[in-house]
């Protein structure tokens, strides 16, 4: 494992970053290049208007809204179960992870707590959504840099995780499995044993990625020192998840969020991975370790599922008492939070969706200034955003 600590490497990175900043001052009339909305490097329909001087980007401004579905408006005319079915379409790669914070916010307002078995199942599926999401990133980063083979390994091994999610919830991409007060159904027989096999496949996939990409000198040259984000700038823009941990900030809501009662991360011993550099290589490395960490979390949880019911006492027609609640969880892409305001009716009065990729992307105008065109693609790939998450 390539642990970068020596000062020489950090000095090299700092020099690279400052050199890129200086030569952007030359105000020549450049060429405007539209990257997107129909472009292989944007995960969905994002358009970046970049003003180029030769190959160097003078300034880049992402244009969004091609996939704006207006979730916050829709949520105001839907009942709580309907919103859960709707809301797992925001980050469609790790979609169970979208439902959990909304349900936790509603449970907080209704003063209801899910029984332990339901919390265990909820945490297991939450981590499997993270594995499914980040496995695709590990493969996709390769294809953005030109290596076509890793992404096929990613899809091949991710398929087993999706099959397990489908076996338990019924839907591969949109499980709609979380309910206020617990989960919809229990795990089918033999599920735990099959899930363990799919986790072994993911672990061997991580080792393959380590050999194929991390060890590859070309990959290292393309990603080290590219898109360096210092910790304080990351915080000012609200970056979250692996992006901020790769800049050296040791912060993970799964461990540091006391108010959360819905997930059982305190029953499992696991480690939060950080990296001092803050460049694209660090973001890739942190996410690779996080996938391995999630595999071990799911393994421990599978071994200790308590007996008991999977649904608390909740009335059939759910009317959430008036009040406001904000719950945020550590989703695969970063922090996703729901600010639910309820006036006691069948539907929420207002749902503010704090999505991770929206804030992660808000740093790109600052970050892409002075980079080369191929580096724009590397940085976008390493920030790892999903368009549904940005446009909501």
């Amino acid at each position, binding site marked *: 494992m390539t642990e970068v600590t020596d000062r020489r490497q950090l000095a090299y990175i700092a020099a690279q970053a400052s050199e890129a900043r200086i030569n952007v001052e030359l105000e020549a009339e450049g060429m405007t290049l539209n990257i997107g909305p129909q472009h292989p490097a944007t995960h969905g329909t994002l358009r970046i208007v970049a003003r180029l001087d030769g190959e160097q980007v003078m300034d880049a401004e992402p244009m969004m809204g091609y996939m704006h579905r207006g979730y916050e408006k829709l949520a105001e005319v839907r009942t709580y179960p309907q919103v859960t079915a709707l809301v797992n379409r925001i980050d469609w790669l790790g979609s169970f992870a979208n439902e959990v914070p909304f349900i936790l916010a509603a449970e907080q307002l209704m003063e209801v707590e899910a029984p332990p078995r339901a919390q265990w199942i909820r945490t297991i599926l939450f981590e499997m959504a993270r594995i499914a999401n980040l496995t695709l990133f590990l493969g996709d980063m390769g294809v953005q840099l030109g290596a076509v083979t890793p992404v096929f390994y990613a899809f091949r091994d991710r398929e087993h995780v999706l099959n397990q999610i489908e076996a338990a919830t019924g839907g591969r991409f949109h499980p709609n499995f979380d309910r206020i007060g617990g989960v919809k159904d229990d795990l089918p027989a033999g599920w735990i044993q099959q899930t363990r096999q799919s986790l072994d496949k993911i672990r061997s996939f991580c080792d393959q990625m380590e050999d194929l990409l991390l060890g590859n000198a070309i990959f290292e040259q393309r990603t080290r020192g590219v898109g360096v984000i210092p910790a304080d700038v990351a915080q000012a823009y609200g970056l979250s998840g692996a992006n901020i941990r790769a800049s050296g900030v040791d912060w993970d809501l799964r461990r540091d969020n006391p108010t959360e009662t819905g997930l059982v991360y305190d029953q499992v011993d696991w480690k939060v991975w950080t990296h001092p550099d803050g460049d694209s290589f660090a973001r890739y490395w942190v996410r690779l370790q996080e996938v391995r960490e999630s595999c071990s979390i799911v393994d421990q949880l599978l071994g200790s599922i308590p007996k008991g019911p999977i649904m608390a006492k909740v009335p059939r027609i759910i009317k959430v008492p008036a009040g406001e609640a904000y719950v*945020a969880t550590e989703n695969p892409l970063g922090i996703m939070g729901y600010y639910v305001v309820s006036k006691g009716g069948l539907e929420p009065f207002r749902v503010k969706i704090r999505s991770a990729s929206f804030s992660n992307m808000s740093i790109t105008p600052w970050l892409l200034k002075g980079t080369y065109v191929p580096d724009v693609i590397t940085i976008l790939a390493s920030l790892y955003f999903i368009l549904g998450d940005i446009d909501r």
Partner: protein
Amino acid sequence: MPSPDPENTEVEVDEPRQGLLDSITQHLGDAVVASHLAPGRELWVRVETSAWPEAASVLQRRLGYRFFDWLSAIDWMESPYGRSMDAEVDKELGLVETEASEAETVAPTGADGYAGGESRMQVLARVHSIDAQLGVTLKADVPDMSIGTWTNTFPGAEWHEREACEMFGINFEGHPGLRPLYLPSDFQGNPMRKDYPLLARIIKPWPGIVDVEPMPEASDQGASTTNPEAAS
């Protein structure tokens, strides 16, 4: 409605958030209009509209709340369109309040939100401190649809404010470029306002409205009715 002042919550006094509330009031003085503390959960503080940018810089520089979580707005007006999913049977089940009488409709305010509010539109924002592991939600009324910007303290607020501006129509003074973020440039109106209709729900009639018709009389309906004698 939970009582706004935190003092009389019996046993659970949340020291860290209480301390935070005191330090905020100590720094901002009378700019803090009201506050609400849900012990162990979240702290809400409502500040004067004019003190909105200053609150941001105080939190970031003096109290170390450097992580900018999010910024948005809320329209407290009751939606005139209702759920557009109401059927007579719902009224019997008591799911839908009968029509509020006209006289009672007073100007909508954020009064029943946490930490109160006087104007229809309110701006919300949340900042977090990673070392103290605490967050605070700031609120401010926006009576004349215009408020100061946060972009000079939190550059990340630029996109959030652009979204709030195009969705609610709130103007952020001093914002570098209030271009529309999501909506096409020639879009009229502010979609997230409650009085903006959700057209999908109005064009298509609600399939649940079709009620089961009463039993057809045993007259010349023909085959569709089974006359009682034959049935036994």
